[in-house]
């Protein structure tokens, strides 16, 4: 039993964990969500059309993330401390060939992660699926059950929101 489960877990585990981590910005909660989704996947795998399995996994993961965020009720408070000024400077610096990228990379990543976790739904799901997980527009549309054109509009709005969030703290 462990072998088939492991195969499934290895196929989807990273995808689930990455999505949960960037959405919740907590390793512990991301681990809980991943474990929950993997068990549910195992329980339902035979009932799901194999062609729809990936979309099912992401859809269940997203719902589990939303539940986890609801449980701790800090979804909107994550950004309250504010995105560091350093992060915005780092974006500017990153386009400057003379700048020391390594010095600011961690700060920038930190700020981006905080901004991502604070952005509202479905903007966050779409930006994580597209930009970090590299999913196609069609797969995202299928997962979220929305028209492909809407996915693109949401993605553009998401990046614009991130720009504003990061810039506003200067």
């Amino acid at each position, binding site marked *: 039993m462990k072998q088939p489960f492991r195969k499934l877990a290895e196929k989807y585990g990273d995808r689930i964990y990455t999505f949960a981590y960037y959405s919740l910005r907590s390793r512990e909660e991301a681990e809980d969500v*991943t474990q929950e989704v993997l068990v549910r996947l195992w329980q339902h795998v035979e009932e799901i059309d194999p062609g729809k399995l990936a979309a099912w996994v992401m859809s269940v993961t997203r719902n589990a993330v939303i539940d986890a965020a609801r449980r701790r009720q800090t979804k909107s408070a994550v950004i309250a401390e504010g995105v560091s000024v350093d992060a915005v400077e780092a974006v500017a610096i990153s386009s400057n060939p003379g700048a020391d990228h390594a010095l600011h990379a961690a700060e920038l990543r930190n700020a981006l992660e905080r901004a991502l976790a604070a952005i509202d739904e479905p903007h966050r799901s779409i930006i994580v699926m597209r930009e970090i997980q590299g999913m196609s527009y069609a797969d995202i549309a299928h997962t979220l059950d929305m028209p492909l054109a809407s996915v693109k509009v949401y993605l553009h709005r998401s990046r614009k929101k991130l720009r504003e969030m990061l810039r506003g703290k200067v």
Partner: protein
Amino acid sequence: MRNSNNQCDQALERIEAYIDGELPPEDRNAFELHVGSCARCREELSYAEALAHELRALPPHRCPDHVIEEAASRAEAYAGGAGSTASGRLRARIGSYLRPWPKPVLASALIVIVAAVLIVQKHERLPIVGVPEQPAEFSPSGKELQTARTDVALAFAYVRKYSARPIENAVREHIGDRVMRTVGESILRPIVPFSFRK
């Protein structure tokens, strides 16, 4: 001046589509022409491109091995321990709550509980065994009902989309037997069409 502002507004609206290479050739040319002559829009484009680049550079994370191990144990309990029955699920759920507690803590807690029961029994001479249990009245709160309705709607959407399982099974899993027994029909009726019920 107004004309220039309009052009800036239009360019700023199109930045994301430009970065994604989704502007038609005519619009793309117009965008590049404007950005070439407008320092403010050029700066905004540069910022947007840098941010998009950094966003794409965020690394995917590897699922820790222990998560897969623990999930495998839970899945095994589900499959081997009559996971499809309510008692199997209950055992798995109880197990998952107990696992995070170290054994010494559990043992100490048990000793304290047993000691407390013995002390109470000795001093108050309360008949602990043999007291008939009163059946607990269960009336779900408004919040529980609201949650159940949401879960039923979600379960219904899933079942319709992904599988041919009877809706009632999925619903039971989502909202639990207690709520189902008490208010099942009143929850199902407005959400799940009759033809989808078991």
